């Protein structure tokens, strides 16, 4: 009788200790059990060498078949020159292109504006046309000074 009690006590103790120590964490797959988005994704391909005044082709690839619109906005990063928004032309499945020329040397941004299935995006890629001045290089480096990475909870 006493031995049985001992056994029960030991089983209960180990049960409680196991539950107490077994921490449960959120399963990465749990996201699938809640509302999900279908974010539009775009990649922009910019040629490595761009000469001012010469034709240049930007290629945009999407992950969706039927976007509402695909525009490309070209401008100098310092805001001194803008070519406005231009419509990219479909050249293949989910692939769009825009051919144009940029007249000045400098640091530029190619910003895609696209929308499909309720998802709107406007990613931008920076690139160099011709040569940068020393001042532009300095500005570029200054903007890239690293700051210490910090993570903190959202709640």
């Amino acid at each position, binding site marked *: 009788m006493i031995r049985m009690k001992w056994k029960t006590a030991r089983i*209960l*103790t180990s*049960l*409680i*200790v196991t*539950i*107490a120590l077994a*921490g*449960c*964490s*959120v*399963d*990465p797959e*749990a*996201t699938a*059990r*809640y*509302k*999900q*988005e279908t*974010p*539009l*994704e*775009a*990649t922009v391909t*910019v040629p*490595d*060498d*761009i000469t001012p005044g010469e034709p240049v082709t930007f290629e945009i690839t999407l992950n969706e078949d039927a976007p509402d619109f695909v525009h490309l906005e070209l401008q100098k990063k310092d805001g001194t020159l803008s070519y406005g928004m231009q419509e990219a032309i479909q050249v293949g499945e989910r692939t769009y292109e825009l051919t144009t020329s940029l007249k000045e040397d400098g*640091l530029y*941004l190619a910003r895609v504006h696209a929308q499909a299935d309720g*998802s*709107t*995006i*406007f*990613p*931008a*890629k*920076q*690139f*160099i046309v011709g040569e*940068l001045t*020393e001042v532009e*290089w*300095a500005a*570029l*480096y200054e*903007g*890239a*000074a*690293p*700051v*210490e*990475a*910090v*993570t*903190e909870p*959202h*709640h």
Partner: protein
Amino acid sequence: MKSSSSGRDWYRAVWRWHLYAGLIIAPFLLVLAVTGAVYLFKPQIEQILYADYYQVEPSGERLSATELLNRVQAEYPDTPITRYRPGETADRSSEFRVMTEEGATTVFVDPYSGEVIGSQLNADRFMSQVEVIHGELMMGTLGDRIVELVACWTIVLMATGLYLFWPRNGLQASGTIYPRLRKGKRMLRRDLHVVPGFWVTAGLLFLVLTGLPWSGFWGANFQSIATNAGVGYPPSIWGGEAPTSNVKSEDVADVPWAAETLPVPNSVVAGYVPLSLDQVEHIADTVGMDPSYTISIPSMADGVYTLSAYPDRAQDEATIHLDQYSGAVLADYRYDHYGIVGKAVALGITLHKGTQFGLFNQVMSLIICLGVVLVVVSGAYLWYSRKPNAKSGAPSAPSNARRNVFLVLLVGFGIVFPLVGLSLLFVALLDWLVVRRSSRLQRYLNAG
């Protein structure tokens, strides 16, 4: 005859647990009730304490978020800025969270002039300190676990208290709903504990149950299980990771930082650049956030901008993760998207904090807190005034049979709340190693 003596035996067992648990828990419960009562009025108190930081005079156009960020960064060079809060009204300052060497600091900025009004170390805020006492007794994780234990044991106290109080010959208003003032001191002392106890039980149980999901151990596990089962908060709101921005790190514009500014090829410079804070603020306007929202700024190349709002009402909550390069909405979680348990927990939190129903909510919760203080103080007084001089005043230990039934109940409770289970094991060990080996202690505790 037998049933009446067994009834008394049972009553003594419950009394014993109520007394010991009460004596141990009472001081903590008192601290929680007092700090909770103060914390309830956080909005009003902070509005008075920090009026100089909060209030701005609207004049002309607001500066852009990026401009404000640059002003703050100029004041705090080489210091990471992790959050931006635009401010919910035209006369409210904007806030930035800056991670200084001293810790997370809130910098208040006038959004019209761009002037930095002042800064405050978050840990130094009066309400942060009240919160740290209420949530972890200023003892970090250990304190968090103690608070959790106190919450669980409060349920035991309420259950045993209700059993002890329950009149064997029917409920009567006197001595339950109101105290009997003219039936002698002994009766009055009893009623001063029982009557407020009766009144606060439901409210206190609610506060305990709504507070437990925030606890570090039981709460964290409970939330994880609920999230994994699809019935809790969606991932990243409480536990779990936020999504990541969809870009390969080699595709991000990356200029190697150097003391000398040397030209590098276009292939190095060319790459995606993160959205500016202005652009993110614009997205926040279009997706419809409560005006008290905050933008969390990513610190890693694959991090996301997170828009989050936790206003007074749970139904207005929102957490939205944005790809930091494209601005794509990667996740958009509102109250309606929480699972049933998540909704209950969210509502429980705003009710517990007293914000859900405004002043009415605050006053109701304050009454519960004051009632708890009264029950704790009168309970301690009741025990002290009744106990014999050289003894603890505990009723004698029950027979083995009764003890076993009680043990089964407590072990069951201990499995649902493992910390309680651990504390029971600790008590059993203490009893076996110390109390059972000292006849003096046994006499004092009436544990024969």
